[in-house]
């Protein structure tokens, strides 16, 4: 087992419930956009890779007859299954790794993956697996945190993310995403960027940071160059961090 696999299973195994209740994951313009894209494709079978709290799988259960939700972490899958059942919806749940998906070639009309690839040690490998399990002409709907074009701002936010969640690897820029997709044989058909406000207290407690860790992270943010904070619209009040804003990249790419 790779160190990253174990880290992800430990990190998300212990915070599964917090991802089910996370407002940033449960809803938003980003999820609405993915669902609108998905609905227009009229899929029969949908796979949600790295389903996490299960919100994307739940939303797509209203779009497709068969939704399969896949994740590396079993407690996360049980939490996601609880959410889907509580809402009276249906989906199948499978423990699987994005780079070795346990599904037949061409099994799905649509594959979704929302706010997860920044945890993947091998994004290119995961995208190749997504292409394999899509039918020809099928669509990959992917959303992730957008990497910043400014190197200093990108390094700053990556450090913030890693201090908060050691399984964070990094966010990729749009040009990098397009290269991953193109290399795998997927053609970008649609893309958009939406913003997501991150309330600081909810964001830092969801990953079970210690009080010391949170204090150190606040100090790191407050000591950072103003231009780095401004790049992510950090808001401060009374010497404390209140929130910041992520930009999310949403892409639809079709299998050639």
């Amino acid at each position, binding site marked *: *087992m790779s160190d990253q*696999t174990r880290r992800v299973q430990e990190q998300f195994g212990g915070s599964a419930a917090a991802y089910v209740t996370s407002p940033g994951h449960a809803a938003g313009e980003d999820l609405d956009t993915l669902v609108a894209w998905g609905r227009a494709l009229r899929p029969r*079978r949908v796979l949600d890779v790295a389903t996490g709290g299960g919100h994307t799988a739940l939303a797509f259960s209203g779009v497709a007859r*068969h939704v*399969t939700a896949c994740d*590396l972490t*079993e407690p996360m*899958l*049980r939490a996601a*299954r609880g959410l889907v059942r509580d809402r009276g919806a249906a989906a*199948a*749940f*499978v*423990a*699987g*790794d994005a780079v*070795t*998906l*346990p*599904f*037949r*070639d061409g*099994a*799905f009309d649509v594959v979704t993956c929302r706010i997860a690839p920044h945890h993947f040690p091998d994004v290119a490998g995961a995208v190749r697996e997504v292409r394999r399990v899509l039918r020809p002409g099928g669509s990959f709907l992917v959303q992730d945190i957008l990497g910043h074009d400014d190197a200093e701002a990108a390094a700053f936010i990556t450090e913030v993310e890693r201090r908060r969640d050691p399984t964070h690897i990094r966010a990729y820029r749009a040009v990098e995403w397009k290269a991953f997709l193109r290399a795998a044989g997927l053609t970008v058909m649609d893309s958009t960027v939406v913003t997501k406000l991150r309330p600081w207290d909810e964001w830092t407690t969801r990953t079970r940071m210690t009080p010391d860790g949170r204090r150190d992270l606040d100090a790191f943010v407050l000591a950072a160059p103003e231009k780095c904070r401004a790049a992510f619209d950090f808001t401060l009040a009374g010497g404390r961090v209140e929130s910041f804003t992520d930009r999310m990249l949403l892409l639809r790419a079709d299998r050639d």
Partner: protein
Amino acid sequence: MIDDELKAILVCPACKGDLQFEDTRIICRACRKAYPIRDGIPVMLINEAQPWSPGA
């Protein structure tokens, strides 16, 4: 219980070959691996599979 719709699309994550479904595990005869079913969830992770041999 794994429904037929899911059985139709599940393959071995290692070799992508066909699987044999049992009540508590899922077997890839080609790789000689048994993937556990825990709490109703097929655990199709290569490093979670147990060695399997015919007749065992």
